[in-house]
């Protein structure tokens, strides 16, 4: 069974076509990047997959079920940390436990506490468990959010621009953790990024998007020079993508 199956998917906001005729299938246990410039419809597509936006035309299936029918427990979602309320009074362990309970915990005790700590250990962030999120750096918060998404042992992990707001070392750490988690858990990882170099380096498959589907396939095919020019209008400043 495919983890994600998208057929003839289109979406418009009024007269503006946001997504046009997308067709792709993501096998289980794959690391997939959705790449495209700003306004390409990446986040909209992710929201459709998470069941936050209704499908207008076409069909979207996650593990064989329509996205609004799927058990949310199967999906671990890591939002962009820049959109999060970092002034919210919360300890890291409470944020992780919210991923387990699918509601905000009054207190984190017993098995919930144990599982939350284990998830933090998996992303090497157990020392942050009782730190308020207001005191975390971007990279630390991103790790805690990753722990929050994997604490429920999801079959699909969806990450929205996970490198935004963190430094280069934090970014490299994050991708290593993600790859390690994906290999150990056999989960499917779906990552949104505008950085095709990262997508090229880490992904099994890449969906290149600019409202229309430019390409889908292994990175060396999907991120060809011609496809990048179609999606971005250029292929970067003074350097070209080095393919594997």
């Amino acid at each position, binding site marked *: 069974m495919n983890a994600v199956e998208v057929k003839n998917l289109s979406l418009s906001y009024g007269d503006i076509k946001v997504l046009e005729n997308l067709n792709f299938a993501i096998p289980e246990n794959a690391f997939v990047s959705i790449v495209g410039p700003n306004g390409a419809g990446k986040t909209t597509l992710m929201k459709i997959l998470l069941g*936050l936006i209704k499908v207008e035309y076409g069909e979207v299936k996650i593990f064989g079920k329509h996205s609004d029918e799927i058990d949310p427990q199967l999906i671990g*979602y890591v939002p962009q940390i820049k959109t999060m*309320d970092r002034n*919210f*009074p*919360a300890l890291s362990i409470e944020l992780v436990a919210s991923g387990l309970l*699918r509601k905000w915990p009054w207190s984190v005790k017993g098995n919930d506490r144990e599982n939350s700590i284990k998830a933090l250990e998996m992303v090497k962030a157990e020392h942050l468990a009782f730190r308020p999120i207001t005191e975390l750096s971007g990279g630390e918060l991103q790790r805690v959010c990753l722990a929050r998404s994997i604490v429920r042992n999801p079959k699909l992990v969806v990450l929205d621009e996970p490198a935004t707001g963190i430094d280069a070392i934090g970014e490299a750490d994050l991708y290593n953790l993600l790859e390690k988690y994906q290999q150990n858990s056999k989960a499917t990882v779906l990552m949104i990024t505008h950085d095709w170099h990262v997508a090229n380096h880490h992904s099994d498959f890449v969906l290149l998007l600019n409202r229309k589907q430019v390409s889908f396939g292994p990175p060396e095919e999907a991120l060809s020079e011609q496809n990048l020019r179609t999606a971005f209008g250029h292929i970067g400043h003074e350097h070209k993508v080095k393919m594997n």
Partner: protein
Amino acid sequence: MFEFLSLPFMQRALIAGILVGILASYYGVFVVQRGLGFLGSGLAHAAFGGVALGILLDQEPLLVAVPFTILVAIGITYVKNNTNLAGDTTIGIFFSVSMALGIIFIFMKRQYTSDAFNYLFGSILAVSLTDVIAPAVLVLISVLLSPFWKRWAYSSFDRELAQADRVPVQFDDYILSVLIAVTIVVSIKVVGIVLIAAFLVIPPATSRLVNKSFSRMTAYSIVLGVSTAIIGLWISYYLDVPSGATIILLQALLFFVVMIIKKLYY
């Protein structure tokens, strides 16, 4: 020192004060954390429209104000969720319409309406048995609805995460805004329409200064709301000054003291 407790009107005021302290400071944590301070103000002014309609119709003002304010709360939530208008713009529209209606209703009464001033500024002398029963019922309802705290807290932190986990955030918005609206209406005899919005904001804000988790912020906010209501009522009785203003000034004093201590020592 405690002889004021032997006076029946003070007993009613004190019980009402404690209940209002629980309600306002509990729902206030969501108001503060969601940045909805203006909603409290807007609904308080909507309550004025309802109270004025009750006075005009010679009905118990609170009984008219409850459905009137609930309708306004639902209207604000609907427009906010279904248009691209900012929350404060939506509240501003409903706020002014309700206030304008209230002024017209009072004008239409064409006789001296001292009652209206009790509602505007609060009066412990005017606290009736209804003003004690109404918040008591709402506290009971709030206890029954306490499992909702976890959902409201989740969507207060991040609406999208909550929605992705199938929390019905829009439905919850309606429930929460209706409960805030009723809290405001049942609080106005003690605190007054003009100041009730502050009661929703100051205890949670003070609690936020010293707490690093939302559950603790909620618990401390309730303790602060109740204790300042009791002490404020006691001070207002001995100084013979308006109860609502005394409670709010006490809460504000506490807020600034905590803020300064935190700044100096932490």
